[in-house]
């Protein structure tokens, strides 16, 4: 589970730190273990979403937040949601890891063997989705 790439993201997280301006802010916690993330989103003119976050928690939740930032910062809702859904499916072992969608996130595949840790890996991604929906970025089709 602790692949080198995960430990790298944990020790040197990408994009950590909150933007001053935002349209929606959420605070998600994993009450069984104490992982916490505050995440902000704001919409850009081209329809993409900027994300920023601050967090504390275990290596998996922190690495996952860093990977999430790499993968879905400045994507539109549809593409970001696709990545979230792919991660969920990978962690439920119903889909093989796809590097095109998840980037370094494929390294999280080992987490699937530890059900207690799946929530840690999902926390930042679910926070992003919640914030984006709260900001009204999910377009009705």
């Amino acid at each position, binding site marked *: *589970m*602790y692949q080198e790439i995960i*430990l790298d993201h944990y020790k040197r997280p990408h994009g950590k730190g909150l933007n001053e301006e935002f349209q929606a802010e959420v605070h998600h916690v994993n*009450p*069984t*273990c*104490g*992982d*916490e993330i505050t995440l902000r989103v704001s919409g850009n003119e081209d329809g993409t979403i900027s994300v920023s976050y601050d967090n*504390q*928690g*275990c*290596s*998996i939740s*922190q690495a996952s937040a860093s990977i999430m930032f790499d993968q879905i910062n400045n994507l539109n809702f549809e593409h970001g949601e696709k990545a979230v859904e792919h991660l969920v499916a990978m962690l439920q072992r119903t889909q093989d890891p796809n590097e095109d969608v998840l980037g370094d996130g494929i390294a999280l595949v080992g987490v699937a063997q*530890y059900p207690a*840790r799946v929530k*840690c890996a999902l926390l930042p991604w679910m926070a992003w989705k919640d914030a984006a929906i709260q900001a009204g970025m999910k377009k009705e089709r």
Partner: protein
Amino acid sequence: MSVLDVASIRADFPILKRTVRNDRRLVYLDSGATSQKPYQVLDAERDFYENHNAAVHRGAHLLAEEATDAFEHSRSNIANFIGANADDLVFTKNATEAINLVSYAFLNATLKSQHKKDLPAGSERFILKVGDEILVTEMEHHANLVPWQELCDKTGAVLRWIGLTDEGRLDLSDDSLFNERTRIVALTHQSNLLGTVNDIPAIVKLARAVDSLILLDACQSVPHMSIDVSTLGVDFLTWSGHKMLGPLGIGCLWGRAELLAAMPPFITGGSMIEVVSMAGTTFAAPPKRFEAGVPMAAQAVGLSAAVDYLRALGMDKVAAHEHEMTKATIAGLQSIPGIRIIGPEDLVDRGSAVSFVVDGLHPHDVGQVLDENGIAVRVGQHCAKPVCSRYGISAATRATYYIYNDLDDVSALIEGIHTTKKFFGV
């Protein structure tokens, strides 16, 4: 040489024979969450189902009689274990439900009095007025905090709490917390996170001086030390069966007879009634008043067998045995750089729950690497978030010990922490 014969005790616990991750032997350091079960308990439960199973307190057939006898004999035996009478012992689903049962006695008495409904004689002690106070401590498990917060929200009573010292003890410097508005003091005997054993005689004295009731959450004390309610001085004692070698699904509430008699019921339905008509119902005397529905007879029988097992070992020996491991654990942790123990580091009035944080590592990661090495610990907030906040931590790793652990388990933990630190390079 330990005060307990750990090798022969371990032989009674089938789960200790299995291996865990990477084919390691199981080092089970999570008995504070739930204990493992010996053959004696498993056999007793199985014997009940195989030979005597029936719904207790119902039916006139032989099996119903045998099941009822087994259930009530278990009640007597378990009550005897804490120096109580059988009639004053109520079985609940778990300790959380036992605490809720008392908090709901307050709520239900308060609501019924507002609607001028019949209440048992003596129920005034449970009727709350706006501004009455409930006193808890900052070291409570959520199970002994949230029910009282809820009670206050519903009645206009005020929740107050005894804070903690930096050393992990109750800070009793503000004695105005105990005043004429204090209706019940609800506190833990031993903190599940800090390991602190509270000074109950001191609390009893303060509470009695203001005529307050006292509820003691004994989840972490009844399994680990000798308890006698006839001298303890509290009004209610709550604990769970599964942390003391017993089955899941059974908890206990002991209460003073005159108080249980004065309390309106919590869960209502069959078994807990006296006379039912469409116009209304009168209720059975305790303990049945608080045991609606078909009760957990097999679990009671199992818990009774657990009590026999512990009694045969001797609770003073159990406590002395755990003390040895606590001492070794604290010394071992103190020898590792970058470890902070959360809770008292002295061994006076201290149980065997030892929590700690490792600088630069989240407890979840510590627990994961320990698990890879066969060591089962608890990580997280331990259902005691306010304690974590008090000591400025998001979570902690906790080792807890019981009769089947020995100093080899302590060594495995200390070695495991070294391995973890090396793995993460901290």
